[in-house]
């Protein structure tokens, strides 16, 4: 009986101490200690994360020469198409700027990109996140969109510390991003994660036509997230006549397991 009492006292002691630590963390008393330990573990985390990128890159192989040749040919054709699209896009951008100038259009805000290195990723079952080496000291705030390659969104800032931040990727189950389909109807919807490597676009009006291969971009209707950031393409459409909305499975443009450097968009 005395041993059981001491066990009960231990459980109560642990509960009280944990509660005090949580309160101290929320108030901010633990911040200096956390900052110190984080600076030490981040260095180790960065080294092993860089190693993990190299290891996983090296693990991609082709089963035969024919497969390699086919992949090369596909990549070549895609590059050519991209070059054509880039030229067309540049012409459209120039025309757009000229038209805006004629209308006297004033930009309501501009965005600045802060480059950051990925130094770690999620270690808990529920999250799909990465850790970057920029934080509040660099002007980063919760909700800032995070991009790669100048225009592909990969997630949003979820938690900010002084010199680091945690980014919630699009594939995370808590991720929600307003999106538009590049189709005739300019269909609006919400991109939701939590479906392994794909994401799902929900709340698409039932009567609007969407097709496989349609591109998805950010809608710009959220504060802090500009319009036009590329998300991915539709790979499957789920439509039931008795439901008000239809859904689409979207393949993100970027493999979020191999991110090395990202850019955080902040409003300047």
């Amino acid at each position: 009986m005395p041993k059981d009492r001491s066990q009960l006292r231990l459980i109560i002691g642990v509960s009280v101490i944990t509660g005090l630590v949580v309160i101290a963390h929320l108030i901010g008393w633990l911040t200096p200690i956390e900052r110190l330990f984080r600076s030490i573990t981040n260095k180790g985390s960065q080294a092993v994360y860089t190693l993990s990128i190299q290891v996983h890159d090296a693990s991609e192989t082709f089963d035969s020469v024919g497969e390699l040749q086919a992949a090369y040919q596909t990549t070549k054709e895609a590059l050519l198409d991209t070059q054509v699209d880039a030229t067309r896009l540049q012409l459209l951008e120039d025309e757009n700027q000229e038209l805006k100038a004629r209308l006297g259009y004033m930009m309501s805000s501009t965005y600045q990109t802060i480059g950051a290195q990925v130094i770690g990723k999620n270690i808990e079952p529920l999250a799909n996140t990465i850790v970057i080496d920029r934080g509040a000291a660099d002007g980063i705030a919760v909700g800032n969109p995070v991009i790669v390659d100048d225009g592909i969104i990969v997630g949003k800032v979820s938690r900010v510390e002084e010199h680091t931040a945690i980014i919630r990727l699009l594939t995370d189950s808590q991720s929600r991003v307003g999106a538009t389909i590049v189709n005739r109807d300019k269909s609006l919807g919400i991109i939701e994660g939590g479906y392994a490597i794909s994401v799902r676009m929900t709340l698409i009006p039932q009567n609007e036509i969407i097709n496989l291969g349609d591109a998805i971009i950010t809608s710009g209707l959220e504060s802090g997230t500009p319009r036009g950031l590329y998300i991915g393409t539709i790979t499957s459409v789920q439509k039931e006549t008795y439901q008000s909305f239809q859904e689409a499975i979207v393949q993100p443009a970027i493999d979020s397991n191999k991110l090395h450097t990202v850019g955080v968009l902040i409003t300047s």
Partner: protein
Amino acid sequence: MRLILLLVGYTTLLLAITIFHLGARYILPAPWDQINVIFIFLLFFLFIRQSGSVIWMTFFSHMLIELYTTTPYGIVLYSSTLAMVAMHWFMIRVITNRTWYSVTLLSIIGLLLYRSLYTLGIIITSFATGQVYNWRALASDLGWELCLTSLVVAGIAVLLHLIQVRAFHPFIGKIYERSRGTTFRY
């Protein structure tokens, strides 16, 4: 002076174990990245030293882990520490031998307790914050963690027996003697 050196030693050990745990998560392919390295280390520390200090090691190591999680602060910390308290009690009062299957059983019990408390904490906070979680993915990841971590624990226990550390290494042999002469046996 001795206390300071002990403190520095334990802190360095905890930092090293945390970085090793992060490394395993990043480098190992799925589903092997679900192996809980910190838990394995703490379990063997408990088994070999049989000391209550493992509870505070669990507490401080998971305070470091909390820095890299997005779940509400305190869930991982509290569930892991409480699970270790229960494991310590189980080891002292229930599991009386030191065989490889007893350490594996303790691993399974500990992980079940840890993740049950963790899931309970998530459910409670999800009601408060309104967050929606992918429970199927969580169950899958936790299932893999339970199976693979226990498998690794069993493997290490068998290996320790095969190596017969008490015969080869006098220093480690003294640790065994201090822990009342127990060794891993079949």
